[in-house]
């Protein structure tokens, strides 16, 4: 292997810079604007996630049970929380590094939050076969408050999403049964953070079947999901000195499952029904602290432009596709407008959205309205990737329109950044952004 010299490196960098400069000059004006907006979204999104993450130094929202149990894992004490162990074990890693303090318990969720931005890029790029779609997905996720607030808190949802995206990427990139097995393991990790992560297996399996890059029987490797989940749980029980044989583990899992079904009896003023999530009925202020006359908020309200567009797409896109499927004479206009790859990728993301909605529709009889807006986080991740696919496709023909759209989305993000990233603001300034009573703490 030849070690490059400093001169060689400088030459290579100069060459690369010249290439990028030429590529920039070759871009039409709207695409240049779009590129600038995307860069601003990604850089801003990363900065806003990281800055001041240890504040407040006390527990907010649901952090307390997760963090206390993470601390328990680090001390080999039994877990008494009602979620699978893996997420809390991961939070414990941050506490091993920084100690039992707010930076320690928010460090690993932050890493996963940043990772999700990269994974959104990877997923959209492979799914739509377009780097541009990848950059857009990364930017949309980076500049959305729903993901920002969960990246800044010691909660499980951001980690579950990250493993979900890993699983989807592995399934879409799969070229052999081994890759499908890896996808299964990653989905198993997601399931071991929160059970809803298991729903990733549905779009992952359909992706494998649709793309036909591996034998259709290889989807059987996704059966590894419950095995990975059980093994992780057994390991956690063993770590805390509890009976960890398969039968005892199974009893613990079943006990917890019954407890979850029974949650409908509980009351919590932060709950919201599933149909309220796509219309932002009750987003939660995940973190809040007051000092003097100013407060710091980290609201889980999303970027309103992305949110409204994706909600419209959830309704309009399947109906349009159905009409096209029935009245095939519209098909060529449709394919001329969106293209086959974009349509297929978008439908797959829509399936992901539905897969993560389905458990809450199915268990409404037992859980009632004891559901929370953050259950929509994985659904929304799929929708943002879908939106990126559409935007990247339409950019080629309707550059100005997409530039305007993304520019407006950036403006919305800038306006909402103070209530996503815990800037010190007055209540009046917060209320200018959190319009409705149900949006406020």
């Amino acid at each position, binding site marked *: *292997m030849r070690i490059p010299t400093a001169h060689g490196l400088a030459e290579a960098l100069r060459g690369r810079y010249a290439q990028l400069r030429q590529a920039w000059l070759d871009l039409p004006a709207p695409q240049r604007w779009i590129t600038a907006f995307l860069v601003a979204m990604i850089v801003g999104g990363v900065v806003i996630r990281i800055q001041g993450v240890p504040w407040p130094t006390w527990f907010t929202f649901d952090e307390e049970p997760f963090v206390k149990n993470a*601390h328990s894992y*680090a*001390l*080999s*004490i039994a877990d008494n929380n009602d979620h699978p162990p893996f997420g809390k074990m991961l939070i414990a*890693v941050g506490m091993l590094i920084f100690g039992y303090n707010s930076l320690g318990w928010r460090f690993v969720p932050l890493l996963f939050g940043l990772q999700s931005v990269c994974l959104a890029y990877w997923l959209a790029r492979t799914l739509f076969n377009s780097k541009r779609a990848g950059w857009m997905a990364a930017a949309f996720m980076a500049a959305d408050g729903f993901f920002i607030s969960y990246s800044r808190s010691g909660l499980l949802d951001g980690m579950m999403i990250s493993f979900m995206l890993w699983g989807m990427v592995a399934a879409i990139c799969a070229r052999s049964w081994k890759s499908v097995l890896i996808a299964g393991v990653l989905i198993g990790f997601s399931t071991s953070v929160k059970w809803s992560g298991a729903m990733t297996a549905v779009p992952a399996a359909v992706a494998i079947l649709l793309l036909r890059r591996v034998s259709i029987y290889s989807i059987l490797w996704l059966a590894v999901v419950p095995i990975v989940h059980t093994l992780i749980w057994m390991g956690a029980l063993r770590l805390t000195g509890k009976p960890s044989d398969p039968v005892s583990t199974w009893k613990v899992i079943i006990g917890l499952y019954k407890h979850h079904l029974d949650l409908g009896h509980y009351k919590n003023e932060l709950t919201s029904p599933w149909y309220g999530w796509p219309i932002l009925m009750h987003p939660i202020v995940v973190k809040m602290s007051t000092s003097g006359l100013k407060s710091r908020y980290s609201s889980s309200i999303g970027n309103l432009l992305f949110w409204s567009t994706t909600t419209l797409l959830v309704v309009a896109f399947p109906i349009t596709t159905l009409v096209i499927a029935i009245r095939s004479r519209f098909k060529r206009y449709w394919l001329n407008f969106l293209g086959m790859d974009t349509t297929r990728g978008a439908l797959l993301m829509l399936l992901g959205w539905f897969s993560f909605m389905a458990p809450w529709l199915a268990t409404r009889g037992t859980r009632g309205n004891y559901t929370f807006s953050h259950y929509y986080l994985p659904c929304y991740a799929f929708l943002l990737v879908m939106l990126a696919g559409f935007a990247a496709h339409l950019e080629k023909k309707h550059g100005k329109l997409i530039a305007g759209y993304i520019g407006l989305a950036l403006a919305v993000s800038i306006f909402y950044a103070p209530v996503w990233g815990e800037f010190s603001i007055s209540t009046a300034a917060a209320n200018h952004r959190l319009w409705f009573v149900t949006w406020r703490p």
Partner: protein
Amino acid sequence: MSPSPEEVAGDSSIAAADAPSAPAPSSGAPPAPQEISAPVVEVKAPPAPKNVLLYSLSGFLCIGVALWLILAWAGYKDKYSQQTEGWRLGSTKMLEITLIRDDKKNLACASEKAFAGVHCGFRINGQPWGTTPDTDPNVLQPFNTVKNELFLAAGLWQSPILQGTLPAERFTVVCNYHILGVLKAVSLRWSATGTFGPVDQSVTVGNLTDCVIPQ
């Protein structure tokens, strides 16, 4: 990284130059036979290792992180006790402790370990260490806070506020508690005639100073 065609060509020319040349015919030697063209042997360069450096570095990094995490995990148990959440080794906490005046004689712990000179009043086999808490500020005793948090502390009875006549009924004192260590295996006794019973979780060990009785 696989070499480019130019590099391959360059390498082969170098190889040809470096190859040992045929020996020069010595004088008087029979004339060289008719020149026979040597058979062309295609020398294949060994396949370049793919990303060996990257894999090795990643492997070392993973092993390093894993080892470090294991060590950090072991260290975490020395810094925090299982009994009291978030009480960190080296920190000082203000505690409100619930007491009766007989606790001076009633409360005792048994362990072989000592932290910065402080130790239990008894060894693990029940033999007294030699000194008692009312005379020695280095003898540990178990106490509970008003929030029912268990900890081991020394130096309480040497506080000026507890030197006079103590209240006959249950009372509380507020002290600064400096954490010196975490005791993983210890037995406790709660009455002068009682037996020592083991605690199933680790307990913090420290000194009590600046005690006051809240008025």
